[in-house]
């Protein structure tokens, strides 16, 4: 196997020794890969300004020649988009970190997922442009990420009685994390106790209540094309409900706690 070139978003970097970096990229053609960037901390010519989080680079890599088990070597990078506006806002940085952490934790190494590459790239571009509130972009990213990963939440009808949410005689429905679907209040009362233990960030451990309006908006941004999805206006209450739902549902399914999500919640409460 020889060298390869591809576009890549930098997800994570870890210092290795005095001069090297181990970098996790989400590439357009090869999915998530981990590479060794030798002498990256010193080399201005090969890695000039390109070794920063979220940056999109055109990278050139080489497979190890002798030891096949060794890491892929990063030979050169050309910075294509550094998203200069994300870094000057700590809340935007927290959101971008959360998305990259989801991608890092969820994706298998070496399995190409160009749709997820495009989704992350577009979400970062949208934040950098600054026309759409980052909270809305985050809802858009999370719900579409789950759909592309095969865990699209069911928001249109009750999971048990299959009644369309439009026809449910209640302003709010229960979203069940395990099922990944909404349940109408009547069915919820029949299958699980009404009293739920408190979970993190305003949600229960098993699910949370969400208004019909928010469910409809989330459903719409999940299916409409990306360029139009950003135009929808979410009320502050809808944003909060959407965040509670998705920021509880994703960690529930991935089965781990996200450092950047905890950081994001702290920033939201402070700034």
């Amino acid at each position, binding site marked *: 196997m020889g060298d390869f070139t591809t576009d890549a978003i930098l997800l*994570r970097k870890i210092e290795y*020794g*005095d001069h090297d970096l181990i970098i996790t990229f989400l590439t357009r053609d090869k999915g998530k890969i981990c590479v060794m960037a030798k002498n990256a901390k010193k080399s*201005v*010519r090969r890695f*000039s*300004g*390109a070794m*920063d*989080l*979220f940056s999109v680079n055109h990278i050139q890599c080489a497979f190890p020649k002798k030891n096949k088990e060794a890491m892929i070597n990063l030979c050169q990078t050309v*910075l294509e988009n*550094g998203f*200069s506006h*994300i*870094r*000057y*806002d*700590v809340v935007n*940085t*927290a959101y971008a*970190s*959360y998305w*990259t*952490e989801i991608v890092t934790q969820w994706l298998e190494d070496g399995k190409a997922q160009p749709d997820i590459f495009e989704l992350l790239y577009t979400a970062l571009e949208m934040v950098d442009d600054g026309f759409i509130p980052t909270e809305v972009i985050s809802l858009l990213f999370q719900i579409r990420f789950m759909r592309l990963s095969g865990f699209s939440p069911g928001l249109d009808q009750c999971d048990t009685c299959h009644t369309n949410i439009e026809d449910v005689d209640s302003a709010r429905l229960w979203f069940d994390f395990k099922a990944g679907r909404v349940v109408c209040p009547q069915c919820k009362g029949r299958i699980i106790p009404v009293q739920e233990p408190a979970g993190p960030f305003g949600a229960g451990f098993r699910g949370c209540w969400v208004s019909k309006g928010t469910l409809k908006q989330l459903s719409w941004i999940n299916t409409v094309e990306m360029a139009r999805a950003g135009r929808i206006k979410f009320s502050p209450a809808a944003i909060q409900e959407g965040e509670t739902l998705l920021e509880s549902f994703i960690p529930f399914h991935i089965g781990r706690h996200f*450092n*950047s999500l*905890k*950081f*994001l919640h*702290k*920033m939201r409460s*402070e*700034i």
Partner: protein
Amino acid sequence: MNHYPEAIVRLIHSLSTLPGIGKKTAERLALHILHAPEHEAAALAADITELKKSVRLCASCFALTDRETCQICSDPGRDNGVICVVENPTDMAAIEKSGAFSGVYHILGGALSPIDGIGPGDIRLAELFKRVRRSQIREIILATRTNVEGEATAAYIRSKLAATNIKMTRIASGIPMGGELQYVDPLTMQKAMEKRYGI
């Protein structure tokens, strides 16, 4: 390593735990110490012991010092009204080497990093805000690094101190002296063009 006496093996092991020192270098250093005059080896051991015993953090700026307050904080010639916020003592040393700053420092001991779970409570931000409340500060220079973590830290400090009337400045980014333009990355070039000055 079985061919060496236990004392040498132990020293090789200890030296190889230092950054950038592998087993071979550790072996060479251990044999060098063995062959060095006794007073030199004793001085090296004493220096290491003394370093651990006497070096601590400055009570005011958190720089490394062997006194209660560091040399810079206790220097009457320094301007206490201007604080330069840096991530690490090495960053402070780099600014001091330039001789371009005559104020005092505040060393955070790191930068905010959402992915690594390093939040405001994990670096010395509360100490900075306390210092700002207690002292008559005219200007804060944010000299955290220009990577994502450094910029996020600078943005956080700026937002927390926005309500005060303290002048907040950020160190400039641009073309390094003697640098070749063709190797400058687009972000640095963008900053350099934005912050160009008249001559």
